[in-house]
């Protein structure tokens, strides 16, 4: 790839008009840095058409492009080897369509999540995507990052409510997939491939969702358990009961610290001690339903040796707890020095065995471990890769800690494999990111081949970062590959690139 030159900037400005949306000032470029690597320039298109124009330009000039949103989750992108242009999509924040009576909405990828939910709230609706960095994140970045929300227990993940999308492929063509209606099997579900694609496939410009009615009165239940077995056993009983809570999470003491502290209002979040495992559930409904939830959750908890139990019926306290649970990833990154955050996808009944292994792993390696085991989803595991809790998250990992870091990754992978699951890196210090990606990719060899074919179909010119992490492969000479040509899984030109983990970098479009 060639670098962005001043003349390239000038040419692009002449293509896109005089409002100079393409800026190469050093100070601004750093805003888009990923692991300390800044783009040569950034562009902030005012429309999807302009974004497509920029992609076509980049394809012609052989520039590498990383689409970004509000830049809240750039840490989980792979460290870029080449990073010519950051394509800032925050200006694409329009509402193209909102039909409250149909409960469907279509918005630009740059639409902030919080702003969208404010709009929906006026119609007593919402979108159940309460994800980390909620107050800043854009909808496009959220989808690209593929992070989950505690509310998935009741509403599922974006793949369950994303109805369609518009995106720009690596040739700069504007592509439409799916639709705006709640049920649709017209053509391939290409939009699902965008979820968790982290900007490696395409530039998302528009997303269509179904919306949901805001639940009526919501309350919370928090119970302390002597150990993980009893907490997960209570969770298991709830899963297999008629109860259908909105959220259902089990947290170890370290993770439950995210609830520490009080709300701004008068109502306090229950005080937690440092020795228990906790089960936290939110539920909603009319008076009869709420009464039943409280009664039966308490009964189940008691059967499983729960100690303290709290009903959180103060809406401010509950909102504060829900918000902190939502922000668990930022919390871990902030509170663990050199934090590693890993998502461990396992079938729910295997969470107990996993907790056994995790606990002994933490004890043996003397690692602080925060664990959140989501009933309808993965286990989120966070730890610190620094023996001394002194420096910031940016602090380098000392060479002495590297073997422990690798050991931790290996153990997590072994754990995932032994229960037919998967491990995925969310966040790690730059020095060990590539190593983690390489380790976790071991479990995904066959899907990697398929993923590469998808990547070639979306991005034949290799404009966007690869799933492979650090090395952005150089463009093969044949940049005008026939779109009809079968896409070979392993282009020979990739020889010599580092081991290529398929684990998608959780986000670049954030």
């Amino acid at each position, binding site marked *: 790839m060639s670098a962005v030159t001043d003349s390239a900037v000038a040419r692009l400005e002449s293509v896109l008009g005089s409002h100079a949306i393409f800026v190469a000032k050093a100070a601004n470029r750093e805003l888009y840095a990923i692991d300390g690597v800044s783009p040569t320039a950034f562009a902030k298109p005012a429309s999807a058409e302009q974004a497509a124009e920029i992609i076509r330009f980049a394809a012609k000039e052989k520039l590498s492009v990383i689409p970004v949103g509000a830049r809240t989750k750039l840490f989980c992108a792979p460290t870029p080897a080449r990073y010519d242009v950051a394509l800032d999509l925050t200006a694409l924040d329009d509402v193209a369509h909102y*039909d409250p*009576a*149909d*409960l469907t909405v279509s918005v630009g990828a740059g639409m902030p999540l919080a702003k969208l939910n404010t709009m929906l709230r006026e119609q007593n609706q919402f979108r159940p995507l309460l994800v980390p960095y909620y107050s800043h994140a854009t909808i496009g970045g959220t989808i690209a990052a593929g992070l989950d929300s505690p509310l998935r227990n009741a509403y*599922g993940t974006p*793949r369950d409510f994303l109805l369609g999308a518009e995106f720009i492929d690596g040739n700069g*063509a*504007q*592509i*439409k997939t799916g*639709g*705006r*209606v*709640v*049920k*649709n*099997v*017209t*053509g*391939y*579900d*290409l939009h*699902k*491939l965008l*979820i*968790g*694609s982290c900007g490696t*496939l395409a530039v998302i410009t528009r997303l269509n969702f179904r919306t*949901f*009615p*805001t639940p009526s009165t919501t309350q919370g239940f928090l119970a302390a358990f002597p150990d993980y077995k009893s907490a997960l056993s209570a969770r298991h009983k709830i*899963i*297999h009961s*008629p109860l259908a809570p909105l959220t259902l999470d089990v947290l170890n003491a370290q993770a439950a610290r995210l609830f520490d502290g009080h709300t701004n209002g008068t109502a306090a979040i229950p005080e937690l001690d440092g020795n228990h495992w906790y089960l936290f559930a939110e539920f909603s*409904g*009319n008076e*009869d339903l709420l009464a*039943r939830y409280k009664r039966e959750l308490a009964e189940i908890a008691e059967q499983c040796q729960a100690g303290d139990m709290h009903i959180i019926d103060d809406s401010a306290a509950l909102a504060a707890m829900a918000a902190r649970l939502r922000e668990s990833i930022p919390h871990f990154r902030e509170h663990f020095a050199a934090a590693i955050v890993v*998502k461990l*996808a*396992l*079938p*729910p009944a*295997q969470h107990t065995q996993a907790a056994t292994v995790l606990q002994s792993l933490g004890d043996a390696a003397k690692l602080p471990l925060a664990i959140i085991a989501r009933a309808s*989803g*993965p286990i989120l595991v966070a730890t610190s890769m620094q023996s001394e809790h002194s420096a910031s998250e940016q602090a380098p990992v000392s060479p002495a800690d590297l073997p422990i870091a690798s050991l931790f990754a290996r153990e997590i992978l072994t754990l995932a494999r032994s229960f037919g*699951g*998967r491990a*995925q890196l969310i966040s790690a210090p730059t020095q060990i990111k590539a190593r983690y990606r390489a380790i*976790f990719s071991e479990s995904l060899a066959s*899907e*990697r081949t*398929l*993923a590469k074919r998808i990547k070639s179909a979306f991005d034949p010119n290799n404009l966007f970062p690869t*799933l492979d992490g650090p090395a952005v492969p150089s463009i093969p000479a044949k940049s005008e590959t026939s779109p*009809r040509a*079968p*896409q070979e899984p392993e282009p020979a030109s990739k020889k010599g690139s580092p081991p290529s983990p*398929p*684990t998608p970098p959780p986000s670049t479009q954030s």
Partner: protein
Amino acid sequence: MDSQLLRDLKSLLGSEAVLHRPEELMLYEYDGSVEVARPNCVVFPRTTADVLAIVKLANQYQTPLVGRGAGTGLSGGALARKGGILAVFSRMNRILEIDIENQRATVQPGVVNADLSAAVANAGLHFAPDPSSQKACTIGGNVSENSGGPHTLAYGVTTNHVLSLEAVLPTGELIRIGSSALDSPGYDLLGLFVGSEGTLALITEITVKLTRLPEAVKTLLAIFDTLDDTTETVVDITARGITPAACEMLDGWTLRVIEDYIHAGFPMDSGAVLLLEVEGMLEAVTAQSAVIDEICRAHKAREVRVARDDKERDLLWKGRKNSFGALGRIASGIYVLDGVIPRSKLPQTLRRIQEIGTQFGFNIGNVFHAGDGNLHPIVLYDIRDNEQFQRAMKASAEIIRYCVEVGGSLTGEHGIGMEKSELMPLLFSDADFDFMRRVHDAFNPKCSLNPGKVFPLGKGCGETRLKPHHVQTPKSEPASAPAPPAPVNAT
């Protein structure tokens, strides 16, 4: 058909697993749609290894290959449009594993949808997608078509219930995607393969989620004097954020035909009815059905009946699920459409369908999933009358065009197949088709698997690449020949 290929297939699968005589093949030239296309031979694999070997032979002889479940599909997806080998999965019908703790099951593609639910009912579970053909249709077919059904309003369609797949690509590769855990990292290949209408891979094993049976179910029949009151009720229920498990609408004319056949207790003089089901925790069901009752009455429902027991409930559903069969008694040809519209546009769309019926001289019935805006207008015609058939097709295209005009889509659950491929340009541009074709070609580069589907003619792949292999040309091209009556099991 190449006689050496037939010999190879027979030696691979045994002669009882290969059909090739014209009278045998006739049974496989239809599905539930109005399309017709005859394969050159039909094979019945029993194992994944069989499927791999069949793919290999098809490649060796450069013959098209098409997968098929029970043949209940409604868009010609499982027809051998370009002839070749039709691989029927009905003998790969074993439930391989049931994991009650994790609420999931692993099945072979030929397992019948309702059989899986029956197998796990004792554990209080079921497989939620419930196409009306569920007593016959296979889970492999459901996965290929991303099938829906009445209760997908609350539970989601097939794609929301699939965790992993084993499949054979037309290149001969055996692949496994997803895992028994949710959230497999990497691209959502499952999302792409489910609903790809058999154009990307032959599915050989499926792990699905099982769903807890609800604690309480209430089935209501709301009877209205006019279509408008009925559709306005659906708009109101949706807008007020109530999600019943099912919200089906049947118009008065169709109801009378059904009642004559099923005797489900439907009124003989109504404008239309809503068949509504509320499921979940008892307290929620009680509260929701009270609100639904109130909304129905506010829209001048003449009567809101509640099914008193399972027997009454089953009878109402029997009426609904056999409605297309009932219509088959009064017409030799039935064309079932599958348009989708925003729920807010229901009243005007139903009025428009009536106008189109009048304009083209048809009685167009409506039995459909009103709660998710998934229309099934039914055009009845005489199969012996080609002019009438062509007119029926024109009326149908007009309806679909209107669906797209109001922000809807071509198909909600039946698929594009060969039936609606020519309508695809109503929604997609040439750039979209180029892109879709690149994705298609990434897995099915020679278009040897299920050719002539999904893409409009000329926009798809491989139409000129395949050797014309068959001795007898398959009869069908779209809308060229009248078709026999559709089977009774339609969603």
